């Protein structure tokens, strides 16, 4: 079995199983704990819980004015990173072919050169995020091993993907295998670290939306 066969075969299968089972376990392990919402008569004219939950999710997409100056880098860089990752993962032709092979679903791709550019911007955003984290006394204090490992395991697939696309550093098959293995490590770590915020943020925002919404308070 070649390295590429290993990466495409058992490694990816095991990683996918750990990702799906782990993320499901963590998701339900958190959300199946007892629901203890403080009951109260809602303010007259308050949003319904569903509307408040939705508002909570939407409002938090951009900071309130007083927090914009200090938080602008975090927000803008965050959006660049997340949109960049989404474009690279879901709009790159070989990735779409891979997904089609798994699910049968496909959609139009962006031109490869555009995706490469987005990949470079995404990497720059990751590096900028790390520099920001290391330079800020607040972020240094609150950061944990999880923050740095999650950063590294997000960076590696982008970096190895770009190297594979550019055929830089080794044989293409080797580069592709390393790229797939880096995705495997990302998937394996996903359920255990902060990458899970990808699923949990919706519930966190919505719950605060419901709590503050019934009071007629800002979100």
């Amino acid at each position, binding site marked *: 079995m070649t390295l590429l066969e290993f990466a495409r075969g058992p490694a990816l299968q095991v990683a996918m199983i750990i990702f799906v089972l782990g993320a499901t376990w963590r998701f339900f392990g958190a959300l199946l704990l007892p629901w203890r919402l403080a009951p109260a008569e809602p303010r007259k004219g308050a949003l319904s819980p569903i509307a408040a939950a939705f508002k909570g999710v939407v409002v938090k997409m951009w900071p309130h004015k007083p927090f914009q100056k200090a*938080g602008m880098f975090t927000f803008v860089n965050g959006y660049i990173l997340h949109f960049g990752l989404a474009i690279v993962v879901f709009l790159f032709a070989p990735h779409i072919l891979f997904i089609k092979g798994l699910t049968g679903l496909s959609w139009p791709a962006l031109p490869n050169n555009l995706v490469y550019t987005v990949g470079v911007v995404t990497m720059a955003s990751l590096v900028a995020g790390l520099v920001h984290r290391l330079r*800020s006394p607040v972020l240094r204090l609150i950061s944990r091993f999880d923050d740095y490992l999650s950063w590294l395991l997000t960076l590696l697939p982008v970096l190895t993907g770009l190297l594979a696309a550019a055929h830089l550093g080794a044989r293409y098959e080797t580069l592709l295998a390393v790229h797939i293995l880096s995705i495997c490590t990302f998937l394996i770590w996903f359920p255990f670290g902060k990458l899970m915020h990808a699923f949990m943020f919706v519930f*966190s925002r919505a*719950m605060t939306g419901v709590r503050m919404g019934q009071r007629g308070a*800002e979100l």
Partner: protein
Amino acid sequence: MTAKTTASGVPYDAQGDMADKDRRDAAMKGFVREFGAVAAAHLEACVRCGMCAEACHFYVATGEPAYTPINKLQPFEQAYHRHAGPFAPIYRLFGVVPSVTLEKLEEWERLIFDACTLCGRCTLACPMGIDIAELIKKARHGMFKAGLIPDRLQLMDRTARAWGSPATPADDFADIVREVGEEHGVDIKVDRERADYLVTVAPAELTEHTKALADAAKIFNKAGLDWTYHSEGFEASNIGYLNGDTELQEKMTRKIIDCAVKIGAHTLVLPECGHAYGAARWEAARWYNDKLPVRVIHMTEFLQEVVASGKIKVKPVGQTASFHDPCQLVRRGGVMNAPRDVMAALGLEMRELENNRALTWCCGGGGGVVSNTRADPIRYKAFELKKREVEAAGADRFVTACGQCRITLDLGAKHTKWDRKIENLLELVADNLAD
């Protein structure tokens, strides 16, 4: 009660004579009880972005990273991952997340109690929607169980348990309000067997701001309403809510609501106190099968009602004014327009502070911080943020609607020799009632 210092030099207080292990276990049990799905969703969503730091008056005023709101939750979060989170058994088995040590809890006492006013500005700043203020309130429950709260708050807790109020014994209440009525020439109703409105008070109104008792009476009388103060249910300031003492919180809540039911009141009016509103308006229903048997409103909402309905008329003051939005009333309570409507009726031209309504800076004394003298130095620093905004607004008058905010701002003004009078909305209305 003994004032102590951790090995790393952080002062803390400890109550009771529990063995170290028992104290730590009590905190963990208290924390674990709080880990429901809501707390879990919040704790699982943090990406350590640090946005909450810039929202916290204590961080902004001091530049001290430890005051970053999410950092104040560290032992609580650690306990979640070790004892309640989805991977807790694995983390415990392999020691991935260590036990929270007693020393850590002692060290964090100052962050959970001294350096947090439960004001919730961080909740507004968090891009993940984590309600940090609510989680810190939950963390206080475990700290209280472990006897790890500031001595000053514990003293108030004991007093409230014994007297029914941190300010005065219930037996003395009727005499105090009658004396205040005589002093101000106002007919004060107290201990009536039946009334439509039960009016409650805050500790400051029984000590520094007794005129507020007469002011409320004056307005209720003028509006021609059927009302009373009552010795069996007068104290709305819920020290259990602040201290993490849920047993006392329930007791204080039941006292005023049961009293209102007993006298057949349809409305319970809370005093000008922010956290009284949080405790009675938004948390009380859990002890009444999820539905309160009486309407609960804040004094500011009452003023808005009687002004809007024409039950009272006010004279125009004709000056400019700035309003300090009490966090528990406005940001956490949703009462944003009522104070402004009343001030408009008074003919006051608003000069809003730069951060107003839900985004207001906290006075720095909420959540029990003003009563906790250990926090004085950082409270005075936080006060500077408010002071700067008030000076920049340049209004003639500076008004608020919370007795605790007023005391905090008064103390800050005195400390910095700032020549500004801080007024309460209730007083302003009572002093300007039209004939």
